[in-house]
C-alpha cells in the first residue's frame, strides 16, 4: 500500500517577524528613525536657544572686521582684516607647526629607533630611557614645561643669549637674520628646479642602463653635484643676489631680522620630542619585523652591508612602518591644537577661541573647526595611503 506523501516543494516560510531580511529592514528603520528624531530634537532646541539669546546664524560673520591682532601671521593681517582672514591665519599657523613637528619628529624618531636597536648597550638603553620617559608623560604637561619652565626663564632682550652675533634668544623669541632677495634671485630657484628634474631623468636613465647592461652609474654623487652646482652657478652668474638683514638691539627690543615666537618654539619642540618617542617604537618594530634570514640571504648573494640595508631591509621595514607612522602624523596634527593652552595663535585659539567669544556663533565656528581637522586628517591619510600603496608588496 502506497502512502501518499506530499513533499513540500518550497521550504516552509518563516513568519514575517522571524525573517532575517524583514528583521534587518525593521531594525534599520528603527535606528534611522531614532537618529533622525534625536537630530531633529537637538536642532530644534538649538534653533530655539539661538533665537532666545539673539545670536545671529549663518556664515555672514566671516566678512565682519575682526578687530584683534595676532602675534604670528604668515599672510598679511591687521586688526581691520575680516574674521575670514583671521581663520586663514590660524589655519596656516596650525599647518606650519604641524609640518615643523612632523619633520623633526620623523628625523628624531628614526634616529632613536635605530639607536634602540644598537648593539651598544649604553646607546640602546639611553634610547629606551628617552622613549619610556617621554611617552608616559602627558603632552600638555611637556608643552607647559618647555614654555613656562624653560622659555619663560630665558633672559630679557638686553641680556640675550647670542650665537655668532646674528642669532639671539630672549624672552621675546628667537631672532635670526632675515634674507633679502635682490633683483635676479629668481634664477636660483629656477636652477634648483632644473637640477631636480635633471636628477630624476638621470636616475631613470641610470636604472634603465643598469637593467640593460648591468653597469652601474654613481647616481648619488652626480645628483649631489648637480643639485648644489646648478644653484651655485646661478648665484655666481647673478652676482650673489642675496643679503641678510641682521637683528639689532635698539632700546629694549630687537629690530630687523626674523623672529620665531617662543610659543612656536615650545610647541614644535614638545610635539616633535613627544611624537618621536612613538615613532622610535614604530621604527624599531618595523626593523625587527624583517627576519634576519633576509639579511643573511642578502650577504650570501654578495651584497655589502650598505646595499643590504638600502635594498633589502629598509624597503621591507617601511611596509610595516608606514601605516602606524601615518596615525602618528595624524595624532601630531591633532595634538597641535594644544597650542591654545600656551596662546600660540593656531586655528583653535584664534577661531574657536577669540572669534567664538566675539561673535557667539558656536555652532558655525565649532563645525568649521572640526571640518578643518577632518579635512587635514583625510589629506594626510590620503597621501600616506598613496605612499603605502607605492611601497606595498606587489602580489599576484
Amino acid at each position, binding site marked *: 500500500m502506497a502512502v501518499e506523501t506530499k513533499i513540500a516543494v518550497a521550504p516552509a516560510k518563516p513568519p514575517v517577524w522571524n525573517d532575517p531580511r524583514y528583521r534587518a529592514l525593521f531594525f534599520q528603520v528603527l535606528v534611522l528613525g531614532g537618529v533622525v528624531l534625536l537630530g531633529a530634537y537637538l536642532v530644534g532646541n538649538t534653533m530655539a536657544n539661538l533665537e532666545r539669546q539673539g545670536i545671529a546664524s549663518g556664515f555672514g560673520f566671516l566678512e565682519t572686521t575682526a578687530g584683534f591682532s595676532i602675534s604670528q601671521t604668515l599672510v598679511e593681517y591687521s586688526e581691520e582684516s575680516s574674521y575670514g582672514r583671521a581663520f586663514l591665519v590660524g589655519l596656516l599657523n596650525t599647518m606650519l607647526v604641524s609640518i615643523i613637528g612632523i619633520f623633526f619628529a620623523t628625523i628624531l624618531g628614526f634616529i632613536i629607533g635605530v639607536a634602540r636597536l644598537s648593539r*651598544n648597550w649604553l646607546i640602546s638603553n639611553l634610547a629606551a630611557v628617552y622613549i619610556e620617559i617621554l611617552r608616559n608623560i602627558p603632552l600638555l*604637561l611637556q608643552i607647559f614645561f618647555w614654555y613656562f619652565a624653560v622659555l619663560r626663564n630665558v633672559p630679557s632682550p638686553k641680556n640675550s643669549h647670542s650665537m655668532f652675533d646674528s642669532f639671539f634668544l630672549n624672552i621675546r623669541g628667537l631672532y635670526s637674520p632675515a634674507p633679502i632677495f635682490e633683483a635676479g634671485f629668481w634664477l636660483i630657484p629656477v636652477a634648483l628646479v632644473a637640477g631636480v628634474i635633471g636628477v630624476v631623468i638621470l636616475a631613470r636613465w641610470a636604472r634603465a642602463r643598469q637593467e640593460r647592461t648591468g653597469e652601474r652609474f654613481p647616481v648619488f654623487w652626480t645628483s649631489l653635484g648637480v643639485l648644489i652646482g646648478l644653484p651655485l652657478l646661478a648665484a655666481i652668474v647673478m652676482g650673489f643676489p642675496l643679503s641678510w638683514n641682521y637683528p639689532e638691539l635698539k632700546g629694549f627690543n630687537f629690530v630687523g631680522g626674523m623672529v620665531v615666537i617662543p610659543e612656536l618654539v615650545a610647541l614644535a619642540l614638545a610635539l616633535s620630542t613627544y611624537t618621536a618617542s612613538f615613532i622610535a617604537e614604530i621604527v624599531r618594530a618595523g626593523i625587527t619585523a624583517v627576519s634576519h634570514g633576509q639579511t643573511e640571504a642578502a650577504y650570501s648573494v654578495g651584497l655589502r652591508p650598505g646595499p643590504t640595508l638600502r635594498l633589502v631591509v629598509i624597503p621591507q621595514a617601511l611596509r610595516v612602518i608606514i601605516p602606524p607612522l601615518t596615525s602618528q602624523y595624524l595624532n601630531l596634527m591633532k595634538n597641535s591644537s594644544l597650542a591654545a593652552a600656551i596662546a600660540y595663535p593656531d586655528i583653535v585659539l584664534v577661531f574657536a577661541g577669540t572669534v567664538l567669544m566675539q561673535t557667539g556663533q558656536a555652532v558655525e565656528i565649532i563645525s568649521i573647526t572640526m571640518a578643518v581637522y577632518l579635512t587635514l586628517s583625510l589629506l594626510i591619510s590620503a597621501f600616506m595611503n598613496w605612499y603605502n600603496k607605492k611601497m606595498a608588496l606587489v602580489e599576484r
Partner: protein
Amino acid sequence: MTDETRSYDPGSHPDLPPPASTVGVVGWVRQNLFATPLDVALTVLALYLVYLLVPPVIQWAFIDADWVGDTRDACSREGACWVYIRVWFKQLMYGRYPDEELWRINTAYVLLVAAAIPLFIPGFRWKQWIGVFLLIGYPIIAFFLFVGDAFGLEHVETPLWGGLFLTLVIALVGIVASLPIGVVLALGRRSKMPVVRSICVAFIELWRGVPLITVLFMSSVMFPLFMPEGVNFDKLVRALVGVMLFSAAYMAEVVRGGLQAIPKGQYEAAEALGLSFWKMMGLIVLPQALKLVIPGIVNTFIGLFKDTTLVLIIGLFDFLGMVQLAGTNPDWLGFAVEGYVFVAAGFWVFCFSMSRYSQHLEKKLHTGH
C-alpha cells in the same frame, strides 16, 4: 697530523678556559661598548651626555633640595624646593574638596584597591562577581560618596573637585563608559545592515578625525545650546560626555581589530548551532575578541589617562590644572619646574605601570603557536 694534536689521548684533553677578553666584565664591556671604532666613539659621546645630564639633576633634585618648612623662605633656591609640593599637596591630590569630607574620597580609593586586588590573584574564584561589582556597584557607591546629598552625606559641588582625584574620576568614567559603547559601535561597523554600518562609520570617523580639544570645546559651548531651555548640565558632566564619546570611538576601532581577528569558522559554527546574533557575539565571538585586544584596550586607557589633562583648557582643575593654579599664587611664584616635575612623576608612574602590565598580559595571553 702534527705532534701537538697527538700528545693527548682522545677525551683526555684538558679543558682550557676561554680567552680572558671574551668573558666576565672585560668581555661584556668589549662586546657591548667597544666592539668597533664607531662603537667607541658612540660610547664616549653617550657617557659625556650622561655626565652632562645626570649629576646636575641629582644635585638639584636631592642634594641641594629643601624638604622641610612651610613657607617659601625655607627654600634656599639652590636646588629644588619640595616644600612647595608639601604645602600644596592636599590641593594637588583633592582640589578644593572640603577637609572634613576627604575621608569619603579616601574610602572610595581603599574600596577600589581592595576590590581590585583579588582580580590579580591567579585562581581566585569569584572574579566575575568582583568584575560585575566594579563595573556596576562601585560606580554607584562612588557617585554617592563623592557627590553626597544622600544618606546624610553633605553635598559637595563639582567645582570643588580637583587635583589627582578629578583626573582619576574623569579617566575611570571615560574608561568604564567607553568600553560598552565602543563594543556596540564596533559591532555596528561590522554589521551587514548598510544603514547601521554607515551611521557607526560616520560616528567613529568623525570623533577620530578631530582633536579632543575641539570635542571639549564643543561639549562646553554647544552642549548648552542642544538642551531645551532651563536644562543645565554641570561643567564636569559636559566634559565627561565629551571624553566618553571621544574615547568610545577609539575603543570601537580597537575592538573591531579583535573582531576581525576571529576566524570566520567561529561565526559560522555559532550560527550552525542556531545561536541568535547576541548569543553568538556574547558567548562565542566577544570573549575571544576582547581577550585578543586587551593590550590595545590598555593602551587606549593610557592615552585617555594622559588626555584627561586637556580638561584644564575648559576650566576644570585636574592634577595638572591644580599645579598651574598653584604656580600663579603670588606667594609661590617661580616654582614651575618643581610643580611640573612632581606632576610628571605622578603621571609617569601610572602610565608606565599600566604599559608594563599590558606587556605582561600580552605575554600571558599569548596562547598561539
